[in-house]
C-alpha cells in the first residue's frame, strides 16, 4: 500500500490512528497496534517478506540482548555477537539486492573471456530491505559500542524496525533517536490525554499535506513531463540540448520533491503517533559546496555512512581520507541500486568531495558553513547545484550508455535527426517551470521550517486539508515513490 492511495488515506491510516489512540491505553497496547499495523502495511505488498523482516528483527534483537548480558572481559564473544548479525544483515542485502547484479557481471565477464553464456538470475527485492537492514546494523553496532542501551522489549525493538511511516524508504532512524521517545511513551506521558499530545497533530498534518503536495502535485507531474525525453534517449533517439537540459533539470527537481515529499509524509505520520522522526532533507539545493550538500541531502543516510563506514575506515585521521571518501561514496552509490550507473554516481560525488576538501585545504574555498562574501558564496552555491545536476544524469539514466548520450545531448553534440515527441511538453515551458522550481528551492523555507513554525491557525488547517484533497484526486494515476526501488 502506498501513502498516495485511497486505501491508505481513507482506511488504513484512520483505522490505525483510532486503534492507537482511542481503543486502548498504555505503552504495550500502542506498540502492539503500531507493530501489527506495520506488518499489515508491509504484507500488503508481499506477505512472504514479513517473515524475512521478522527473522531479521529477532536475530538482531537477541544478538544485542545477549551482548549486554556478557561480562565486558569476554571481548571475543562480544565481538562475535557484533559481527555475526552484521554479516547476516549484509548477506541478506547482498542476496536480495545484489545477487542479480553480480550474476549479470559474471555473465558479461564470462562472455568477454570467451566462455559460454551464463544464466542471469535475479531475486525479488524485498521493499525497504536496504533501510531496515541499515537500521539493524546501526542498532547492534551502537549497543556494542555502548552508545545506546538495548531495547527494553522485543515489541519495542520490532516497533523501531518496522514502524510503518518510515519502513519503506526511511528516514533511516537510529535506536538512539527513538530511545527517549519510547521512554516517554513507556512512562505514560501520553496517557493523561485522550489522544495525541499537543503540536504533534498540527505538525503531523501540516507535514503530511506538504509532503503530499511535493510528491503528487509536483514530482509526479514533472515525471509525466520529462519521461518521454528520457525514454526516447533510452530508445536510441536523439534529443536536442534544450530538451536534454529540460529533462535533466526536471529530474533534478523531481527526485528532490519526490523523496523529500516522501520523507515529509513519513515524519508527519510519525508525529500523528507521537514520534518525532529525524529530518531527512534540509534544503539540499541551498548547499554552499558538495560537502554541505551531503549534510543536507538524505541526511540520515549520509550520517549513517559517515558513522558506520567512513569513520570505521579511518575517517580523516589515517591520512587516507581520499581513499575513505571514495570507498564510502562508491558503496553509497551501490546502496542506491545494483547497477553501474549508481556506482558511477557515487564515484562522481566522491570526486566532488575529495576536490572540495582539496580546495579548502589550499584555501581556494572556505570551510563549509564559514562566512564568505556574498557574490562568491552565490557563485560556489550555483556551481555546486550544476555539479549535482550533472550527477543526476548518471542516477536517472537506464545505463551508462544512455547517460553518455544525455551528456552528449546536453553539450549539443550529435548532428542526427532530433525527434519531436508527441507526449513531451514544450521545452520552453519546461525550462520556465524549472526556473520557478529553482527559485522555490533557493528562496523558500523548507517544509520543516514551515511546519514547525506555522502557528496553530485554523485557516492553515483548512488550507492544508484542501491541499491534501487536491492531491487525493490524483490517486487514480498511481506512481511509486522513486526511493522505493532502493
Amino acid at each position, binding site marked *: 500500500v502506498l501513502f498516495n492511495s*485511497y486505501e491508505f488515506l481513507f482506511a488504513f491510516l484512520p483505522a490505525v490512528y483510532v486503534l492507537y489512540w482511542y481503543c486502548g491505553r498504555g505503552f504495550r497496547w500502542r506498540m502492539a497496534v503500531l507493530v501489527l499495523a506495520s506488518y499489515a502495511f508491509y504484507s500488503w505488498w508481499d506477505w512472504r517478506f514479513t517473515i524475512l523482516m521478522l527473522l531479521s528483527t529477532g536475530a538482531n534483537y537477541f544478538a544485542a540482548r545477549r551482548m549486554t548480558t556478557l561480562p565486558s572481559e569476554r571481548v571475543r564473544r562480544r565481538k562475535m555477537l557484533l559481527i555475526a548479525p552484521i554479516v547476516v544483515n549484509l548477506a541478506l542485502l547482498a542476496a536480495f539486492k545484489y545477487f542479480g547484479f553480480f550474476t549479470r557481471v559474471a555473465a558479461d565477464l564470462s562472455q568477454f573471456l570467451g566462455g559460454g553464456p551464463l544464466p542471469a538470475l535475479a531475486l525479488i527485492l524485498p521493499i525497504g530491505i536496504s533501510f531496515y537492514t541499515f537500521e539493524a546494523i546501526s542498532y547492534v553496532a551502537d549497543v556494542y559500542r555502548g552508545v545506546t542501551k538495548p531495547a527494553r522489549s522485543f515489541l519495542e525493538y520490532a516497533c523501531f524496525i518496522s514502524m510503518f511511516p518510515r519502513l519503506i524508504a526511511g528516514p533511516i532512524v537510529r535506536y538512539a533517536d527513538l530511545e527517549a521517545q519510547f521512554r516517554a511513551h513507556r512512562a505514560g506521558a501520553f496517557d*493523561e*490525554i485522550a489522544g495525541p499530545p*499537543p503540536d504533534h*497533530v498540527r505538525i503531523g498534518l501540516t507535514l503530511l499535506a506538504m509532503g503530499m503536495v511535493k510528491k503528487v502535485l509536483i514530482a509526479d507531474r514533472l515525471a509525466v513531463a520529462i519521461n518521454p525525453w528520457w525514454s526516447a534517449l533510452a530508445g536510441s533517439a536523439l534529443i536536442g540540448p534544450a530538451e536534454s537540459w529540460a529533462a535533466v533539470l526536471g529530474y533534478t527537481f523531481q527526485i528532490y520533491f519526490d523523496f523529500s515529499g516522501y520523507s515529509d509524509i513519513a515524519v508527519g505520520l510519525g508525529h500523528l503517533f507521537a514520534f518525532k522522526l529525524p529530518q531527512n532533507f534540509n534544503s539540499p539545493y541551498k548547499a554552499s559546496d558538495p560537502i554541505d550538500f551531503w549534510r543536507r541531502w538524505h541526511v540520515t543516510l549520509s550520517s549513517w555512512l559517515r558513522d558506520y563506514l567512513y569513520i570505521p575506515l579511518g575517517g580523516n585521521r589515517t591520512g587516507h581520507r581520499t581513499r575513505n571518501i571514495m570507498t564510502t561514496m562508491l558503496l553509497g552509490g551501490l546502496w542506491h541500486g545494483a547497477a553501474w550507473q549508481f556506482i558511477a554516481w557515487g564515484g562522481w560525488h566522491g570526486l566532488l568531495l575529495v576536490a572540495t576538501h582539496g580546495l579548502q585545504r589550499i584555501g581556494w574555498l572556505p570551510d563549509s558553513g564559514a562566512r564568505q562574501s556574498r557574490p562568491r558564496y552565490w557563485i560556489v552555491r550555483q556551481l555546486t547545484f550544476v555539479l549535482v545536476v550533472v550527477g543526476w544524469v548518471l542516477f536517472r539514466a537506464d545505463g551508462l550508455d544512455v547517460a553518455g548520450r544525455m551528456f552528449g545531448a546536453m553539450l549539443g553534440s550529435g548532428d542526427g535527426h532530433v525527434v519531436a515527441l508527441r507526449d513531451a511538453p514544450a521545452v520552453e515551458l519546461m525550462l520556465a517551470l524549472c526556473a520557478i522550481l529553482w527559485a522555490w528551492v533557493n528562496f523558500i523555507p523548507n517544509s520543516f521550517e514551515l511546519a514547525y513554525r506555522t502557528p496553530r491557525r485554523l485557516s492553515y*488547517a483548512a488550507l492544508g486539508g484542501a491541499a491534501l*484533497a487536491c492531491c487525493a484526486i490524483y490517486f*487514480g494515476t498511481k506512481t511509486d515513490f522513486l526511493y522505493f526501488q532502493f
Partner: protein
Amino acid sequence: MLREITAPLATSVARDRRFMVVFVGAFFATWTGVMLIHFLGNPDGLFPSPRNPSRREQAWKTRQLQRLAREGRAPTVLVLGSSRMVQVLPRQIDQITKGRSFNFAAPGSTPLDMLAQLRFALTNGSSLTHVLIGIDDQAMFGGYDTTHELRIITAPEQFAQLPLQERIRLALRAPVQVKPELTWRAITSAAHPPGLPVVQPAQAEHIMFDDGYLTHPKLVRERHLKKWDPRQVLAEKIKALRTQGDDVLLYPHGAAISERHVRYLRELLALCRRNRIRATVVLTPVYPVYDELVMRPVERELRRELSRRIERLCRRERATYRDLSSVESFDGVPFEFWDFVHLTPHNIRRMTNVAFGRRPDQGLAELPTDFQLIRAPTPVHSLNTP
C-alpha cells in the same frame, strides 16, 4: 499545582483537536466537491451521470437494450464478451439461429460483466434462446488494467445485477477514475451538458448500430480505398514491440488463471442452464505472429490449461465449447486483424460460423460488408442517441 500544569495542556490539546477537525473537514469538503463535479460533468464518460450520460459501450448498449425491450423487440440471442467480440455481426447470428440477436460485448469484459449483462437482459424482458460467449484469455489471466472492470459503473442497471461484494468493491474504487486534468471540462459539461457529436456516420472513428454491432467507419473506408492495409500496420506494430518492454506481454508476469473469473463463468453457464438458454463458449485468438513472439512455453501451457478448464466447465453445465484460439481452427486469414488482438470482419464471421458448428464460409456471401453497413447505418445508432 497540577491544575496549573494541566490547564494549558488541556487548552493546547483542544486547539490541536480543532485544528484536526478543520483539516479533516476541509479535506472532505474539497474532495467531495471535486468528485461531485466529475460525477455530474462526466468528461470521460466513466460515471453514470444523469446530466451527461456515458456514451461508452456498456452504457449505450444497456440503454439500447432497454429501448428495444420498450419497443417490443427484445433480443432472443445475446453475444457476450470483450472487445474481441464487438464485431460479431448480429445479422449473421440471426441467419444461423433464426432469432433476434443483440451484441452486448464491451471492452475488457470478464465473466463477471457477462453475468451482470445476462441477468440484466433477463430482468429486462428478453426471453433468450441462445448466448454466444467469447472468452478473452487476457481477461482470465488478469491481463487487463484494473480500470477496465470499473466500466460497468457507467451502466447502473447492469451494476445493480452484480453480487453485493463486487458492487461494494467497485464502488469503493470508483474515485480512482477521476482524471484531475479534466476538471475544467467536468465543470463545463456539468453546467452545459454537451450535445450529440456533429459527425457523419461514415466519418466516425466508431459507430454502434441498433443491434449492438460496432465498427470503425474511418478504417473501413480507408481499407476500401486501399489506403489501409492490415499487413503493413501489423508489421509496424511488430517492429515497435522491442521498445515497449513488458507492455507488450499478453499475460502479466506470474500469470495464473483467475479463480474468481472461473467461478463467475460457472455461475454464468449455470444461469443459462437454469433458464434453458443454449450457451456456446469460444476461446478467441490473437494475431499469430504476435502470439509467436510474446508467448513463452509456460504461457502456452497455461492457455491450454485454461481451455481444458473451460471445456470441463461447459461439459458440466451442458454448454457447447470450441477452442478457436488459433486462426487455423476457423480457416481464417492470419493477417486479418485490426491489431494484435482484434479480428477483422473477414475472420470474425468465419469464427462465428465455426462457433455454431457451420462451415467457415457458410452463408457469408449473403451478409453485408462493413463498407455497405456504414453507407446505410441503422436509423438508431450511437451517434444519434445520447
